[in-house]
């Protein structure tokens, strides 16, 4: 055993020696205390930045750009701001699988201390992290999407997903010929349950006896349900086979599978977050009845604009029907015949006549 220990010891000494040598960094990694890394980072990143233009930092949760959904919507808001506002450099970082709160904190801190201001955290997973980091950098403006973390320099961009989902639920109930519709949720988390609650209530307001199949693809901590089109397809297929003729998906990247199943079954599907009759794969756009718009891009753009204008306000900004933060889409003209009815419901929700449950 002793010999083995010595072997292991030698092994790691070799490991570190090797890494040092490769990195040609003089072997002073043990000294600690100095802040060389952050200096390096600042030097590297500040070079091309304009003098006083806002340097925007964006931290995604798992998935990052390319999920065709939530994260991409945030990215779209950033892109729009880049094009229309006078922004300096932007930096986007993304979370890895299985990481801890400390790692999320470090990501926000890295952005803040490297001169990125404002810093936007995408997703509720940053809740605890942003509270701590925002307290350390009082002069930096932070924003978090989908979370109510409080702080004097934290803006909360939250959405009334249940209200938007109510409208597409009503649309589904008005359009169904079999009085049987479905809902496919990506992961069974409170956020997605809000979509379900609004959808079911909306459908029931039109047809109290309507049958709504509900299926979640995965349960936490397995977040694969947001990025598994095959699972989405299977779930939706099951609903169409069972007699549903319209399925609403709130499943991020898995939604593509739901659209495919709708196409195979010659039935309808309802998109989510973006106007998916424009953003989904071209071959399935024709099956999209409407989409529940959650305008994360607008929220990100508004926040950046307020920063540039110097009018950032801390605390929650709720993007609901009234504020135009959620809505239903009319692309493709499939809901033109019922648009008036949907607008009536919309007005009732805005006026407070209809209260939409969130769970």
């Amino acid at each position, binding site marked *: 055993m002793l010999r083995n220990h010595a072997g292991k010891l030698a092994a790691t000494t070799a490991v570190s020696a090797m890494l040092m040598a490769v990195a040609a960094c003089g072997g002073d990694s043990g000294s600690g205390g100095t802040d060389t890394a*952050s200096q390096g980072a600042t030097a590297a990143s500040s070079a091309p930045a304009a003098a006083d233009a806002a340097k925007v930092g964006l931290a995604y949760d798992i998935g990052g750009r390319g999920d065709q959904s939530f994260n991409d919507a945030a990215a779209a808001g950033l892109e729009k701001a880049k094009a229309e506002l006078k922004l300096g450099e932007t930096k986007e970082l993304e979370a890895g*699988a299985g990481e801890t709160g400390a790692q999320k904190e470090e990501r926000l801190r890295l952005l803040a201390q490297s001169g990125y201001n404002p810093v936007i955290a995408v997703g509720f997973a940053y809740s605890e992290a942003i509270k701590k980091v925002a307290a350390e950098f009082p002069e930096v403006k932070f924003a978090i999407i989908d979370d109510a973390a409080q702080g004097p320099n934290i803006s909360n961009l939250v959405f009334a997903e249940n209200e938007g989902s109510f409208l597409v639920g009503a649309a589904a109930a008005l359009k169904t010929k079999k009085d049987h519709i479905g809902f496919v949720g990506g992961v069974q988390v409170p956020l997605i349950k809000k979509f379900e609650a609004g959808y079911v209530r909306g459908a029931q307001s039109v047809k109290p006896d309507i049958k709504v199949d509900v299926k979640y693809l995965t349960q936490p901590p397995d977040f694969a349900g947001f990025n598994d089109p095959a699972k989405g397809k299977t779930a939706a297929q099951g609903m169409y086979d069972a007699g549903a003729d319209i399925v609403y998906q709130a499943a991020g990247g898995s939604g593509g599978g739901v659209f495919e199943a709708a196409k195979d079954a010659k039935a309808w599907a309802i998109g989510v977050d973006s106007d998916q009759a424009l953003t989904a794969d071209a071959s399935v756009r024709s099956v999209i009845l409407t989409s529940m718009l959650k305008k994360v891009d607008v929220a990100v753009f508004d926040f950046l604009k307020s920063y540039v204008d110097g009018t950032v306000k801390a605390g929650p900004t709720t993007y609901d029907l009234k504020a135009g933060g959620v809505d239903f889409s009319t692309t493709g003209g499939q809901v033109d015949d019922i648009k008036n009815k949907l607008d009536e419901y919309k007005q009732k929700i805005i006026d407070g006549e209809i209260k939409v449950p969130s769970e």
Partner: protein
Amino acid sequence: MSSSFTDRLLGRVRLSGLLALAAPILAIVFAGVVTSIILLLNGNDPLATFGLLLDFSTKPRVQVIILNSATTYYISALAVAIGFRMNLFNIGVDGQYRLAALIAAAVGGAITLPGPLHVGVTMLVAVLIGGLWASIAAVLKTARGVSEVISTIMLNAIATGLGAWLLTPGRLAILNGNNVGTKPIGPSGQFPGIALIPGTPVKVFGMIIVAALLGVAYSVVLNRTRFGFDLRATGRSESAAVASGVNVKKMVLYTMILSGAVAGLVGMPQLLGASYSYSLDFPAGLGFTGIAIALMGRNNPIGIALGALLWSFLDNSNDILDFNGIPKEIVVIMQGTIVLSVIVAYELVHRYRAVAEQRRVSRQLSAGAGTPAQEVAA
């Protein structure tokens, strides 16, 4: 050569002298070369990339996070290694620790006791739940002969479902915005941190001491006790163990439960040292990280510690790559390459040794017909 590939893979066959040094060096060189090639193909400078990683890890705050993650990884790898030493592949560490952490968090949040007792009760619950969950696979194996690889993977899925069911408002959890988690554990149930690294207010998890003690216990139990001897003997050859009077079924049961009990502690550093609540964003997948690190550390407590540190270093310093426009996924490639390199390098060195040994023996045989061949020492 009398040892099997599995024996060599799991570090049961030792190398001595220069060869013991050759294997890890070979592994590192190989991993370094492969990663450099990938970086070059991607248009990045390998030296600059390694430099960025190392530079970033010199920040005191990052060092604390590296130690903290490594503590968790270490416990996870130890849990896996206990099974490995007996040819038991506990793929279920992931489910075991998640379920244990969830229930321990709920218990810890519901009670209030004097400091050490509160922490102790929470940890005890975690150990019990971890062991209990693993015992299902153990019983299935001993009573019905179900492969523990299959049963533990399926139990992971069941643990996910059970956990999701328990983690809903009205059962073990409370709603907190869009997050849902157990009631936070009060100050008396929190494991105090240690101000180990100067230059930062962030503290190292106190659980690092528990992890170190676990490593010592692992070494002592395996190498200095009757149980450890039986365990290693069963791992090397089940039939030989039976012949020498070892009750293999009992050993399977005990080892699996022990592995699960240690797995129960995997979530404790994070739960008792940082989050104080089990919620949707509690780290998942650590059981699989543990498998990789146990293989990398060749089931040796010190090897695992070094593996855990290296893994944690790569996990925690990769944001700086993203920051500088280098895809952070390169780190995942590095981790995979290192594990494979370690396995390949040790196998190559073992084979080299076997061939050299055979040559030596045949030389001796041909030189003096009377000289008896030396036994190949295992």
